[in-house]
């Protein structure tokens, strides 16, 4: 796989079809591969890597890269292609400047427990590439995923238990902003939390409530646009299961407004910028489950 990808990338560079290749660069250790731009074949040969530690979703890097001169080739795993589509829909990626190569993915390994698949890969929602110019390896199918199991488990807890659970998780937050910075849906020019004029500027939480506030708002801002790529949880240095917040919104949206997968196509109206006259009333929140 890696060999074929390097060959193809070198070929694209030499033919002049692209002038840069966005891929993964081998790190000091086997598991710390990082996103990187390659411009020549030698560099590719020496440092390009594609193995089970290439979790980074490269689509967000295209926001900057596709804005530059010339065409950039990019390798996209199936889940990355959803983010790719979503970013195109939001005019963040200039599609004409990108040559997208879909690459087969069999799941990424968890850097903390290198024998195990990452949680997001163990509950993979789709092996299908929804956008690409060419494909290396095979594109799979949309899978029946059990990704909402944990959300459901939380929903079935009592309100107190849930509170304790989240207190335990969110109190570890150090507000490093990694989750926000890596998120392909977080592409604001300036985040409201960084903007003193927004009225909600909040660089570091003054109290635990503001910790919650940051995470609720972050999840709300990407609700309906989040493709559930799972990058937020991957990069969290405190291993907070942030994807459980995003998935809660996704699950609610699916249940209340019909199945929706952000990024599946480019020209869709997201569930939060859409409505039907017969939508569920907010009281549905009180009616289901026990408190």
């Amino acid at each position, binding site marked *: 796989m890696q060999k074929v990808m390097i060959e193809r990338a070198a070929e694209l560079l030499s033919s002049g079809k692209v002038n840069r290749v966005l891929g993964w660069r081998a790190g000091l250790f086997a598991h710390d591969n990082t996103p990187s731009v390659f411009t020549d074949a030698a560099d590719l040969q020496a440092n390009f890597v594609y193995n089970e530690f290439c979790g980074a979703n490269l689509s967000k890097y295209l926001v900057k890269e596709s804005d530059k001169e010339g065409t950039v080739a990019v390798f996209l795993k199936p889940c990355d292609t959803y983010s790719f589509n979503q970013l195109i829909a*939001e005019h*963040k990626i200039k599609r004409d400047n990108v040559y997208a190569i879909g690459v087969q993915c069999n799941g990424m390994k968890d850097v903390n427990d290198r024998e195990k698949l990452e949680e997001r890969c163990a509950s993979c929602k789709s092996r299908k590439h929804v956008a690409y110019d060419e494909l290396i390896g095979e594109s799979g199918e949309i899978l029946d995923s059990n990704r909402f199991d944990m959300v459901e488990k939380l929903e079935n807890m009592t309100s107190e238990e849930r509170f304790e659970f989240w207190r335990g998780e969110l109190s570890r937050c150090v507000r490093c902003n990694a989750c926000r910075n890596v998120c392909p849906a977080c592409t*604001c*020019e300036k985040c409201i939390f960084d903007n003193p*004029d927004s*009225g909600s500027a909040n660089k570091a939480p003054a109290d635990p409530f503001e910790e919650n506030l940051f995470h609720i708002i972050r999840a709300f801002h990407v609700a309906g646009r989040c493709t559930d790529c799972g990058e937020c949880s991957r990069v969290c240095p405190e291993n907070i299961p942030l994807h459980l917040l995003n998935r809660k919104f996704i699950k609610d949206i699916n249940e209340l407004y019909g199945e929706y997968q952000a990024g599946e196509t480019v020209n869709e109206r997201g569930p*939060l910028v859409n409505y039907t006259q017969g939508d569920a009333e907010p009281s549905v929140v009180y009616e289901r489950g026990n408190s």
Partner: protein
Amino acid sequence: MQRIGVFVCHCGSNIAATVDVKAVAEAAKHESGVVFSADYQYMCSESGQDLIKDMIKEHKLTGIVVCSCSPRMHENTFCKAAAAGGLNPYMVEIANIREQCSWIHKDMPSATAKAIVLVRSAIAKVTLNAPLTAGTSPVTKRALVIGGGIAGIQTALDIADAGFEVDIVEKEPTIGGKMAQIDKTFPTLDCAACILTPKMVEAAQNDKIRIFSYSEVSAVKGFVGNFTVTIKRKARYVKEDLCTGCGLCTEKCPQKKVPNEFNLGLDNRRAIYIPFAQAIPKIATIDPDYCTMLKSGKCGVCSKVCSAGAIDYQAKDEFIDVNYGAIVAATGFNPIKVDKYDEFAYAQSPDVVTSLEYERLMNAAGPTGGTLLRPSDRTHPHTIVFVQCVGSRESEDSTKCGKSYCSKICCMYTAKHAMLTREKYPDTDVYVFYIDVRTPGKSFDEFYRRAVEQYGVHYIKGMVGKVTPEGGKLKVQASDLIAGKQLHIDADMVVLAAAIEPDKTARPLATLLTASMDTNDFFTEAHPKLRPVESPTAGVFLSGACQGPKDIPETVAQAGAAASKVIGLLAKDHLVCNPCVANANEMLCSGCSQCEKVCPYGAITYSYKEFRMPDRTTKLRLVASVNAAVCQGCGACTVTCPSGAMDLKGFSNKQIMAEVDAICK
């Protein structure tokens, strides 16, 4: 630093009896930024307003808070007073301590405490107010009427009468619409053509009115007062300025087998045609689907016989852009297709007709020259069965193409048909099967009773269940609910009162106009009772059956009403805009286009703009901008924007959060 003045009104005892106004004024004094605070008997009185004006000058106030009744009551009064005192009228906030405090709380301490919180919250908000100026936008003094039926013609005539220019866009080769196809009109039974054609001629001769026939609206840009509409002038292959309407070509054209839509396919026309004798404009049109010259390049007869040289086989669709200040939708209606109702055998027998087809069969200019003949064998029918409510008043989940509403006009035109038939041919038996006879209208019920009492039409409460064509007859099986019998009638003709539905072009047009529609594709009015001829989209008005089923008098009345609204708009040189509108901060906008999707008015547009970057390079970025003349200030976009780039003037994020903070303190 703001200098804020607080005025606490007693409202006689309305407020002062339950709220300690002195304590409120005193508490306000200690709020940051407040330089003046006082209570007064009646703030809305002349002297109360003078107090505001004087204090603004005396204390150089930059903002004021009036603690009084609901802003819905006197906000305007105090804004005007502030303006008179030299302050921007948008630097005024009202703390509602009457409706939302003194009137609902009985206990003085708690009411006073609440009033103080409300004042604090208003002070917190006004501190962040910014002076706003209501912008203006110019008005293009020309109106567009889409649809050239009686609704469109009447609207255009009324607008032109007031001295404004108006264009009619009609998709057919002639104006006239459905009314031109009708024989007689109820309840007076005067002939439709006799009252319609003079109006058509008047429209054609009025120098303020331009008629774009055989044309469609293909794009709409802009906003109230400033629309730019792209009109597609379909190629008619005849030069409009040369054709004299002599009609020779329509007689010589060898292609004779084209179903005549004006007669609903009951007879044929040629490939080059003028829809009917009184057509306006009276210009021939070539039907490209049937013309052999256009299809295979062989023929050219019309070109040879045309002495004016008007035929142009090379013609292409043309697109023209015109500016308008107001747009009127008058797209009208159509009867629904009734083929799906197998039980009525419409598709099986030519003698089962819809009411509009019957109208043509009765019309002197129709396919039978006004003699009522069965379409199948052209014999005179002796027994005619009318069926009411075909496709109207069906349940919402109807599997057929039925409509849940009452089509409103069928009861009356069926009474008319029955009456005219009996009058012309007293030897016919006429049965009308009805569920209810609905005749609310001036002289309507009298008309229906006349059909029964003078003309001997058999009105039977019940419904037709089945029509079977058999041996040249139509066997009608029906129920008579009052006699408690099932009837079997051998009829010669069956006439179906098909439900009416909005024209199919209305839905795409609504999208172009960003006007809203109901589930039946009728245009929605801005308010069902108080603004019945305006659409919720500013500058778009509604005329005729595109808004709901209507008969001719109602249509004409509504057309006049729509025209008067248009005239009211065009009479202004400038429109004053609501200054409390959304505003995009281009530096923060990331161009994600989410806000554009929630805007109900299409006020948000995206464009690439150049930005200077900190490193002195320039960058092209897609950013949103709000058209202040179109934005109504709902704020839907502000919440959609994750960056907070979109904010609402007068209700900004910071202002509302300041209020929240003041209340929760």
